[in-house]
């Protein structure tokens, strides 16, 4: 009976007695959710264009952040380093298209998936070789990212909003909106959607598959760079960020692998729910629930909606 009380009643009593903490938790969940959505977006773009789950998206986050910090450490001014890092991500996209995607055209999806594994280890090796494996600090101040916090007295307490988190939420939202607009309303976007629907049909109307792949991988690289800057500024730039980026997997399962709005909604749901669960139900299980809770949600969604909340329903005839 007591256990039922602890599970079903006590968390809500806690929410009611300390609403400021609830508000703080919702804010933290929202920020995490936006960042998860940003990472997930990188996966979705590539999945839609090439039909492959890009396992290398996580290391692309680390690699882009390391390049930025490394260029700055080499004496390049921060904003120029940012532009050069974007250029590096473009070169990477061209390289991936030429050396990985093009030779594997018409191969089964699993081959492409395995190729992204190879790409992951290649980028880890190159990153460690050039920049070293030690933890580095993101050049947040030099990139004019704000620091400090705003304390909002509300709900009988204080809700503290980090200016960096506000900036992260705004930048991520702008980036998500911009990518949505580009891929929904521009010529490139229409071509991208055509490729996503059918490679052959797209080719038959003169769309260059190779060009679209480069654009999409470059877009995913830019998304990775933005994520690397934001997450790196919140903690540090280290190879551990790669694992954080894999948090996008349950987000994708939830939102659907093929849906840009799904990535956004999925990210927010996972971000908010894992924070709420850890704070109010986590202590009952010894804490540390964040490492698995998102996957539980994903599993439940898989049971009832295998294509995710917004993913395409694929019906294949036997």
């Amino acid at each position, binding site marked *: 009976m007591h256990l039922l009380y602890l599970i079903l009643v006590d968390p809500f009593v806690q929410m009611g007695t300390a609403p400021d903490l609830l508000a*703080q938790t919702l804010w933290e969940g929202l920020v995490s959710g936006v960042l998860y959505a940003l990472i997930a977006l990188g996966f979705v773009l590539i999945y839609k264009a090439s039909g492959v789950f890009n396992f290398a998206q996580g290391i692309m986050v680390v690699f882009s952040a390391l390049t930025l910090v490394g260029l700055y450490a080499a004496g390049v001014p921060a904003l120029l380093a940012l532009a050069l890092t974007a250029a590096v991500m473009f070169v990477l996209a061209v390289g991936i298209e030429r050396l990985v995607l093009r030779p594997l055209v018409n191969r089964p999806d699993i081959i492409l998936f395995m190729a992204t594994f190879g790409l992951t280890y290649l980028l880890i090796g190159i990153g460690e070789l050039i920049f070293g494996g030690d933890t580095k600090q993101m050049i947040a101040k030099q990139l004019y990212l704000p620091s400090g916090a705003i304390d909002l007295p509300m709900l009988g307490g204080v809700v503290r909003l980090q200016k960096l988190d506000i900036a992260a939420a705004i930048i991520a939202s702008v980036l998500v909106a911009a990518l949505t607009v580009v891929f929904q309303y521009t010529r490139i976007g229409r071509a991208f959607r055509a490729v996503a629907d059918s490679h052959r049909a797209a080719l038959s109307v003169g769309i260059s598959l190779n060009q679209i792949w480069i654009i999409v991988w470059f877009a995913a690289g830019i998304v990775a760079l933005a994520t690397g800057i934001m997450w790196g500024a919140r903690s540090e730039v*280290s190879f551990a960020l790669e694992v954080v980026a894999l948090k996008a997997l349950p987000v994708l399962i939830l939102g659907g692998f093929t849906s840009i709005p799904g990535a956004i909604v999925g990210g927010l749901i996972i971000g908010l729910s894992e924070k709420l669960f850890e704070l109010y139900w986590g202590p009952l299980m010894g804490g*540390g629930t964040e490492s698995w809770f998102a996957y539980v949600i994903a599993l439940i969604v898989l049971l009832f909606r295998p294509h995710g909340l917004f993913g395409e329903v694929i019906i294949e005839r036997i």
Partner: protein
Amino acid sequence: MSLRWTSIAACAAMLIGLALPAFADDQIYVPLFSYRTGPFAGSGIPIADGMHDYLTMLNERDGGIGGVRLALEECETGYDTKKGIECYEAVKGKKPVIVNPWSTGITLALIPKAAVDKIPILSMAYGLSAAALGDTFPWIFNPPDTYWDGLSVIVKQIAAREGGFDKLKGKTIGYIYLDAPYGKEPIPLLQQLAKNYGFNVKLYPVAAAEMQNQSSQWLNVRRDRPNYMIMWGWGAMQPTAVKEAVKTGYMMANFYSIWWIGEGEVQGAGPGAKGLKNLNWHNNGTGYQAFADIKKYVLDKGLSKGSPSEFGLELYDRGVYNSVLIAEAIHVAQKLTKAKVVTGADVRRGMENLDLSSTRWKEIGLDGFANSLALSCADHNGHGNLFVQEWDGTKWVKASGDVGPMNDVVDPLLAAAAKEYVDKNTGWPKRTEACDHTS
């Protein structure tokens, strides 16, 4: 066998020969397990450099130890127990005189192997706390303090600040830790101390995959409002925890870390990290003759793998301390056996007879670097004095005098833990190794 297959076999043999360097019989083989890659490299790199540079300096300056060169070889574990065991299996056949796992998980996996392979394991201030008992674990050494010693010193410090152990009653101590064998190691003692002194314990585990995503743990801290926080962190977990603590507005003066947090892991949190506490047992910096020699014979000659900026920082110096223990154990083993090229069994005896007095520290060019340390057959740890350092915004500064562990509380628990280990591992061998002295 056809010519083709003979050629292939010959090539394969050549390749294997190239991949596994042989070490001459007139050298002492010292493998150095390290992690320069992966999520824990931030902590692993300076330690690996400190270890490597001190032993390389001995090779360059003195021609090794007792006139015998040290054959040094790093093996990358990535702080992964599986890879650590692979490293151990790879070096085992090359007659290593000692193995430094640099991971509690790897140490736990190697403890049963050490006695069988006759290779002493040095888990310097980490690993299984109960391994301090040499009568039960004759091949394992964990000087100069166990994790339980470290925790007891922190609790002692907290009690002193509160005005006595009786004042701990009703207080709450939060414990944030890497959810791995390392982070879990001190929990039994923490719970015992909580029972003894009536304080509450709140546990905040951080999974390795969530090291850089700790906002939930710190929301819990905000809700629970612990009077003090203790951290057992490693790698990217540490800078993230410090940043989150600052973000949450936690009083940094009440935030204690075990001895593994380096300067680079605090700097990123900015001025808000001022007041953070950290344990240590040696001084930091480069103001010692041995460090001048490292610079002259290793750094200036381009023989170091590290960056000059880490020279003299806390974790680099920790690596140097680790290598001093290795070198001294070899030195003592040579004196005991009158042999130049010593074996793992000899170095085990060397460790048991280690006597790093203040005179000896001076002789090796590290006058005042650390406290005296003497080990024995029964005591493989030393349980030396520790001190508290405080972050002043740019560097660690000494914030306490020497504080000894709570031996009266810890010793019986160590004995019980050792007994429990033996009971769980049926057939654990009784010590048969002779003892050179009975101190």
